């Protein structure tokens, strides 16, 4: 069985010291968890505790490991735990902000996910299982959160993405959004799908042909115009055109938030390969 390993500029002695200190901390956690009523625990549980320790220590590289050793493992763990608790409180505030400002577009999976995240501050164990995410997250984001993020870090990032998506959605009249979503999927209210992406993409497409963005109205004539503009474009030209269109959306909608600007530009970026594929199919046809 391998050890708690660093990939590493630490010498063997330093690594061994680091491992021993980590295991001593693990022993303390086990004693706390069992409240002295059990001398042993399943190895699988000990591994979870170990993951939780590493999460709270936030060791990303050797430099951080050395810093932790210098400051003391126990002190660093306490400090990390305190940060995790503050982040949990932030997640709660973020949740409330998102819930109160959710768009007037009913989507079951978004509400279910929000309902599950509501319980996060209560069911999240930041000491023994800090790396785990105890929530059921069904609602798919337009730009997903990295699965390398764990525990509260994942939840906060998820909520931030959702906040940005909903903030942009709220700039549009829900009555204009509904036909777009109906066209995308008749059962969008009950399906596990993202409701931001079709609206944002429609806005970008309308900006591309200089039509009214806020109307979100796109028909045969608009699609023909888009095809005419883009049909001879290379992938680079396509990316540039969509980027310019996204910037036009930002300008027209008077978006000042940097996070929302970046998000819209990424939406445009994500459209490039799909548009390239669609245009190619049209030509082949």
């Amino acid at each position, binding site marked *: 069985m391998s050890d708690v390993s*660093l990939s590493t500029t630490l010498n063997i002695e330093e690594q061994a010291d680091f491992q*021993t200190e980590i*295991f001593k901390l693990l022993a303390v956690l*086990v004693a706390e968890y069992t409240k002295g*009523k059990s001398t*042993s625990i399943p*190895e699988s549980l000990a591994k979870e505790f170990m993951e939780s320790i590493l999460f709270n220590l936030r060791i990303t590289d050797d430099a951080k490991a050395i810093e932790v050793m210098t400051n003391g493992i126990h002190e660093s763990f306490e400090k990390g735990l305190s940060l995790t608790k503050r982040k949990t409180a932030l997640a709660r505030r973020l949740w409330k902000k998102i819930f*109160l400002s959710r768009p007037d577009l009913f989507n079951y999976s978004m509400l279910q996910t929000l309902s599950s995240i509501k319980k996060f501050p209560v069911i999240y164990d930041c000491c023994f299982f800090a790396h785990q995410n105890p929530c059921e997250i069904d609602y798919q984001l337009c730009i997903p959160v990295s699965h390398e993020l764990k525990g509260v870090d994942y939840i906060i990032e998820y909520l931030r993405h959702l906040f940005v998506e909903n903030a942009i959605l709220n700039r549009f009249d829900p009555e204009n959004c509904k036909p777009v979503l109906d066209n995308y999927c008749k059962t969008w209210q009950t399906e596990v799908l993202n409701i931001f992406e079709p609206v944002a993409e429609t806005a970008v497409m309308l900006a591309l042909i200089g039509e009214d963005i806020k109307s979100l109205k796109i028909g045969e004539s608009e699609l023909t115009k888009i095809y005419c503009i883009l049909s001879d474009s290379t992938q680079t030209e396509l990316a540039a055109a969509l980027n310019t269109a996204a910037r036009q959306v930002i300008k027209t909608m008077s978006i000042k938030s940097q996070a929302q600007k970046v998000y819209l530009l990424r939406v445009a970026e994500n459209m490039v390969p799909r548009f390239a594929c669609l245009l190619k199919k049209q030509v082949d046809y």
Partner: protein
Amino acid sequence: MDAQLSTHIIQALAVKDCELVSQCNQETSKYGLTLTDKEITQLQVQRFEALKSSGRVEFGQGILRPLIMKFCDSQFIHKSNYAETLAALQEMFYYFKTESGDYLSDNELLTIMKSIFDGAAQGSLEYLNSMGLETICRAIKGCDVDEGDDEVYEDEEYGEEDEYDV
């Protein structure tokens, strides 16, 4: 970084309770039961083997001392089978602990084991091994409770936000 557990470090951190076990001899000698140093060392080796085979880790003192104190007054343990019986009980203890989902505390599990060993098993380790788990599971089932977590956080933590319930 990965979170694998290093067996040799865990063994180093686990308190080698040879001295503590040795101190038990003073108490158990009144029942005519004592362990030699060699037997104590052997029991420590068997402790780590039992932990490994039951998929468990132990950082502090082992279960051997509490096990001795619990079973030393059993009429079915004699000088001739003392160390051997302790080794078997120690192995069974970790096995039962895992198989019962860690539901019982060490003391509760030892108490059930002792009651079967002295009662229905009449000192038979084979009987304890085959019937013990079933009895333990029945005991756990008897004290199963619904913790009702959902109600706790709905009412206490978010009571003021219930109007926003989804």
